[in-house]
């Protein structure tokens, strides 16, 4: 049996992270039909770019690739740190297309990040969608033209909010066709 591992990095407070992690785990298990296991992960301070005060998602993926348990089909890390790739100002997450490891950042999913009052429901909803999105890439899905599908490209929270926390029928069918790729 191989598992989809979802792990919080050590920067997240275990109590505060429990709720989003549970929400993410449930929606991934339902969408990809694989058992989801939790896996505590080390901090990602090594990836800090002090000039940008952000964390590089590429070195994070490299380390995750080495930390992946033998029985892991895929490993998705969840971090509170703000991620970037060199060419972009930020990324909500980053995953190897059709690969084994990915990471999703919760930093920009909080309402507080945009100077708004906190909203737990909105935050959990966004976390579910972005985790589904990055995991979808791990299962080989590319961006979907259906703006309501979790696999549609979001470059801002408004786009995240307008999509559903589920794959569209076409993307879901692609997962059904090749379940454990």
């Amino acid at each position, binding site marked *: 049996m191989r598992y989809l591992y979802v792990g919080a990095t050590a920067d997240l407070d275990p109590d505060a992270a429990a709720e989003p992690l549970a929400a993410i785990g449930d929606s991934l298990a339902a969408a990809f039909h694989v058992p989801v296991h939790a896996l505590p992960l080390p901090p990602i301070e090594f990836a800090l770019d002090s000039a940008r005060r952000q964390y590089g998602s590429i070195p994070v993926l490299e380390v995750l690739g080495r930390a992946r348990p033998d029985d892991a089909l895929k490993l998705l890390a969840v971090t509170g740190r703000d991620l970037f*790739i*060199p*060419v*972009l*100002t930020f990324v909500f997450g980053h995953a190897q*297309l059709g690969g084994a490891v990915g990471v999703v950042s919760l930093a920009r999913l909080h309402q507080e990040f945009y100077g708004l009052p906190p909203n737990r429901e909105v935050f959990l909803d966004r976390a579910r969608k972005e985790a589904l999105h990055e995991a979808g890439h791990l299962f080989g899905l590319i*961006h979907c*033209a259906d703006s309501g599908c979790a696999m549609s490209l979001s470059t801002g929270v408004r786009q995240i909010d307008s999509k559903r926390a589920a794959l569209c029928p076409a993307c879901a069918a692609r997962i059904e066709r090749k379940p454990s790729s």
Partner: protein
Amino acid sequence: MKTHWQILVVDDEEVMCESLAAWLREDGYAVDTAASGREAVDKARQKDYAIYFVDLKMPGGMDGIETMMQVRRLHSEASIIIITAYATVDTAIAAMKEGAQEYIVKPCNPEEISLLVSRILKVKNLQRENTILRKKLSRQYCFQDIISKNARMREALALALEVASLPSTVLIQGESGTGKEMVARAIHNSGIRAAKPFIAVSCAALAETLLESELFGHERGAFTGADQRKIGKFEMANCGTIFLDEIGDISPKLQVDLLRVLQDRAFYRVGGAEEVRVDVRVIAATHVNLQEAVADGKFRDDLFYRLNVIEIRIPPLRDRRDDIPLLASHFIERLSHELGKDIGGISEGSLRILLDYNWPGNVRELENAVERAMVTCRGKTLGEEDFSFLAHNGAQKNWAVPAGVSLQQMEKLAITATLQRTQGNIKESASILGIDRSTLYEKIKRYEIAR
């Protein structure tokens, strides 16, 4: 319609290059990378990319601007986006002056890149659609539009190109659906008459008397219903080219009339007394074997020799199967635009079906088959199930073992057919038949097969 567009990311910093490429791949684009300007130009020589992301500062004597200039020399239509970490007004102006489509500063906002790419491709899709529609409207085909890598076909096209600028009459022989009219149009459009009219007449479609008045025109009162003078196709084609399709189907009387036009470039309108002189280049085409028709007495030999000044034979699709993948992907690309479907390719299994099918209707049938498959296709790739209708059309069933024939007669038939297919090439025929050349010579002699 992302799948058809290719993007090249050029940056000497591998991490920049790969991260942008990976990000664009997640969006469904086909992305290549190059680590230097030189490598980018090499890649641009091999492939036509729709968009180039080029880093401004690169070592090795070739910066982003120089790279852009060289790429634009190869592909003037290419959209180039210059990326830089050190933005100054001067470099931005220099880049735009040299033809950069956009100038972005890294790190850039993901939304900015996403919008930029989709905006550029929207324009490119419209341009592509416009070119296809224009071409369809004016049917201005040229030799570059005829897709083939088959040696026999290339030979036929080379001959056609060679004779394009001559005034000589051309006879194109080939089965129905092989693209005879396309070759005729290409000859016309590549010659000195390109700006003059190209008039196509299908000789099989009309009854004898109608065809006569269609070709030569008629005077007022020439026959019942001829209430005014009508100009014929030969006069319409004056200074240009007339394309007589299915010439093998014309009646003996019209054969005589046509012979006179070919000899004297002059004729009379039906019911007219005044001789009309024209300067017309004649390209004729036929799907029947005219030599045989001459031998059977159905076609005048003097007309045949007048027409057959330059003979171009277009091989049927089943004899140039190596073109099937090329043609299929061309049709998929063109029809994706026309049908508005994002279909990027064809599965290996279905390509096998296409390669195994006999294509009695040739390229036209292939085009129709691809269109039918694309209409019903639900995915992004044409699969075997989309071509299941070909099995019902009787793939590979056009041939049956003739009963009551001896093995020797069968052998003779097989050798004759192979020699016909290879146009008498002994080496190729021997290899197809799986025998030595000397054995083949011996059998040709024994069975008295004409070569």
